[in-house]
């Protein structure tokens, strides 16, 4: 199994795992909130990212390797922008769509199954692009 296939398998398994009381407590302690994160982007860092992206409310953001939608959905909520969430694991994208629905962001968030190395979008489709430890 190549390094890439191994990573995809690991992420698929992790995103398919059910959140438990313990995982939610740990995430709150480490990340600062329950946002479906399993990486290193804290709430404070997501705030910094949103600030540096300087998004207008009508802007379109692409979040590559979005996982369960963190921090793309948070940035959309905070700035009013629209967001395209892209990643490979389907379980992660489903979780992202559920979160978008529960935060009244369904009309401003679209999930697309795509690898960061083969994005199916024409040039100049987005006002801004972000990714968090995905590439």
């Amino acid at each position: 199994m190549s390094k890439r296939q191994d990573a995809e398998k690991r992420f698929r398994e992790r995103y398919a795992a059910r959140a438990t009381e313990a995982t939610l407590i740990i995430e709150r302690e480490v990340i600062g909130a329950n946002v479906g994160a399993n990486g290193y982007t804290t709430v404070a860092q997501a705030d910094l990212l949103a600030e540096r992206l300087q998004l207008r409310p009508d802007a379109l953001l692409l979040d590559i390797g979005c996982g369960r939608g963190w921090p793309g959905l948070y940035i959309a909520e905070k700035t009013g922008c629209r967001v395209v969430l892209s990643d490979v694991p389907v379980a992660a994208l489903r979780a992202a769509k559920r979160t978008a629905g529960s935060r009244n962001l369904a009309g401003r968030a679209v999930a697309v199954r795509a690898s960061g190395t083969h994005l199916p979008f024409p040039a100049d489709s987005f006002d801004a692009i972000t990714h968090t430890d995905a590439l």
Partner: protein
Amino acid sequence: MAFFTIFVAPGLSEADNRRALSFGPSFVSSRRRDHREMLVAAGFSKVEALDLTHEFRETQQAWLDGRERYARELVAADGQAAFNERQAEGRRQLAGIEAGLLRRALFVCS
């Protein structure tokens, strides 16, 4: 574009570069080129970088400590093998950060 990324520290020897790749998260790769250089080569200008390696270390340590504290619950949910694998991966990354082999930064460019 603004993004966080974990990368192999620049200027390492071949041996340290290989060690860094073995310590890093599975998606970390190295073309042995500075991120700023690569962004400029890709047509971006006004590249800013903010080093967050210290925060990366703190976050990694917090994940490890948190999972250790709730080990019994996590093992019950996911199994001992998955728990051990996750903790071993975290400890490898922490060792890589502390050895100066892995870094994390925010890059902002337009």
